[in-house]
């Protein structure tokens, strides 16, 4: 797609994205700058019972061409984060702090998404940041054919003639391996895997910089899942977009992602490369997650889950939200400020964690720390540090 065919953003008059320039590689943006920089991002839902903090001072950088996995339980706020960053959340959601900088290939200067107007956002959406939704059956308009839905996207963002648009739509199906005859089909006539591929094709229609994938394979069976994931990886290599892959399935991310961010109760608990997370998990929650599913290889071992359930976000507890379910928890955890600290023992210089007390080397523990409610510390942790386990000192970076 050459520059001559014209980004919509170039057309004079209303609704230009501030800072947009000719398509194609632009000088002035180095490869080490993140394409999407989320800083101190917070979202609340304003209900009649009070404000519910769904995302709390979240920080994440997404670099061009990389795959960042966002792992967390249901209700941890991962979808809220992704949609909130694009400002797609509906009332009663409110973004209360932070910034979301976007600096794609086509931008001369970065754009602050949280300050864009509605019409500017419409140009940014999909063109620069596309979303692949979770359940394709629900995310595809039932009354429009596949071709119409593809054309929707094409006409909204690209200035193509009718025949060019039709050809583009057909070539998109080629891209994901669907026969062109399916252009005329309606969503209910396609199989689950095909629908998901159509969603992916639609997302890539305008050659976006960032693709947010919200549990794209959760609703599919494993065989199809594998196919789709392979397809995604192949397309990413070819077209060079970055992926924010949201899922509750950590094992998937270990295979797929470059970096993994672990989220809980609206907060970021740990970020690191996939390798580090897999072999040297630092945060107790991450350890617990990894411990919760068996690996295909290796010796059999007893599985341990994580007891308890996520907290009520209307009245978030002080300090670390994971404390009630943490096997290492102590009263000091109520004073933790959840800022991310470098894990000194990690091979990855960017590996950070929110838990100041537990290191990758700390032996894995399960269950909940025995501590009473009133705060008198009855945990065995205080009395018997053993096996190279740090006591309650802050980690020195």
């Amino acid at each position, binding site marked *: 797609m050459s520059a001559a065919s014209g980004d919509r953003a170039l057309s004079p008059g209303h609704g230009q994205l501030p800072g947009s320039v000719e398509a194609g590689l632009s000088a002035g943006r180095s490869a080490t700058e993140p394409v999407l920089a989320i800083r101190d991002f917070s979202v609340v839902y304003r209900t009649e019972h009070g404000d519910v903090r769904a995302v709390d001072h979240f920080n994440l950088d997404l670099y061009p061409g990389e795959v960042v996995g966002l792992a967390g339980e249901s209700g941890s706020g991962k979808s809220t984060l992704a949609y909130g960053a694009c400002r797609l959340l509906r009332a009663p959601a409110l973004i209360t702090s932070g910034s979301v900088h976007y600096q794609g290939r086509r931008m001369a200067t970065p754009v602050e998404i949280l*300050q864009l107007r509605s019409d500017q956002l419409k140009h940014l959406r999909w063109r620069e940041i596309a979303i692949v939704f979770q359940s394709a059956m629900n995310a595809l308009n039932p009354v429009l054919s596949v071709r119409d839905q593809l054309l929707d996207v094409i006409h909204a963002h690209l200035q193509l003639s009718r025949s060019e648009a039709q050809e583009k739509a057909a070539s998109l199906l080629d891209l994901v391996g669907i026969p062109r005859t399916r252009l005329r089909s309606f969503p209910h006539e396609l199989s689950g895997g095909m629908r998901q591929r159509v969603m992916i094709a639609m997302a890539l229609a305008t050659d976006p910089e960032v693709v947010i994938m919200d549990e794209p394979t959760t609703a599919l069976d494993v065989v199809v899942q594998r196919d789709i994931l392979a397809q995604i990886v192949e397309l990413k290599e070819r077209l060079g977009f970055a992926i924010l892959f949201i899922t509750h399935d950590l094992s998937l991310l270990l295979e797929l992602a470059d970096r993994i961010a672990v989220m809980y109760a609206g907060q970021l608990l740990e970020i690191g490369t996939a390798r580090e997370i897999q072999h040297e998990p630092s945060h107790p929650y991450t350890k617990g997650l990894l411990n919760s599913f068996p690996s295909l290889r290796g010796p059999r071992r007893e599985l341990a889950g994580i007891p308890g359930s996520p907290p009520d976000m209307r009245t978030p507890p002080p300090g670390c939200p994971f404390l*009630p379910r943490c096997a290492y928890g102590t009263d000091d955890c109520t*004073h933790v*400020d*959840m800022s991310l600290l470098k894990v000194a023992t990690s091979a990855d210089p960017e590996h950070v964690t929110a838990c100041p007390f537990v290191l990758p080397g700390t032996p894995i523990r399960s*269950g909940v720390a025995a501590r009473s409610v009133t705060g008198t510390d009855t945990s065995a942790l205080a009395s018997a540090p053993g096996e190279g386990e740090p006591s309650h000192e802050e980690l020195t970076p």
Partner: protein
Amino acid sequence: MTVALPVSADPAALTETPKDRGRWQRLPAKAKVGTVLLGLFVLTAIIGPFVTPYDPSFQNPNPALSLQPPSAAHLLGTTQSGQDVLSQLLVGIRLTLELAVIVGVVATALSVLVGVTAAFLGGFWDDLLSLLSNVFLVIPALPLLILLLGYLPQRGQTATILVLSLLGWPWGARVIRAQTLAIRNRDFVAAAKETGEGSWRIITFEIMPNEVSLIAASFVNTVLYAIGASVALAFIGLADLSSWSLGTMLYWAQSQQALQLGAWWWFVPPGLAVALIGTGLVLLNTGIDELGNPRLRDASRTSKIGGRRLHPADPTPVLQAAPPPRRSLAGLLHAFSRDSLLEERGVGSAPAARQPGRRPAAPQPGRER
């Protein structure tokens, strides 16, 4: 090192979420208004006939008392033959409500019977009963009612009840059948079957409790239908014209040319009564609907943020401390200075008890962000 596994001490669960708003408080406003309205009419129906100032059928031969507008003696005026409208109204409300409630009970019972049976038996019986329901649903009710009543030798209360119940069950039956089918396939029913519970026990104790709100909604709808139909039938003249129901009042008003003679006090009260009872029922039903589907609830509070009403396609609003560029939503929010308000609600900068030292913006030496 083994650790005891106590019940997880979740601090959040310990702070008692106030449930002081009782069950009545939590009903949507519409349901409350509807209930109050209906309550008024039910009360009137119960005590009405005992407090009528006059005998409603008493025809006063004195011509001076014929078609009198409301006065101190006759609060709602008189009819063509000198009868007191208020007395008729009081009796009429009871009669109409009586009829409608009885029809409601009978028809709802029928529809539950048919619906549950069809869903439970399945196969041929289900097809047959469904066909029957759909056929009687699509055939317009009023003409058939007119035909049936027209042929019956006597057209009194009983006949009307019979006929209305006969045609009032299909709608509810359809809805209940659909719901029963859905529930029947759920796991807990299969579990009950496995443990050997008899079919009737399953129906009564497992399935029915889940359908209470549906049955209630169906009942309300049927009563609504019964009122409308009985009033319409009476208006045409297919009722016991010597009894006083709201419909017969309207019939007499119409046939005695009340409208042309300007006697508004004759036809407005009964019509208004019907309309208000109907409104009460509709409100109640909508309230029940909203209880089940919270999305439908009045969103006038939740869709308003920063003083501005949002519709679904608006981008998520942003609260900002620094003045942003003009014309943006964030600018409007800032202009209203919501920060302090938000702090009261516990959003934004933290009050003392929580998370001290939380200042993410300032980079500190040696700490990664």
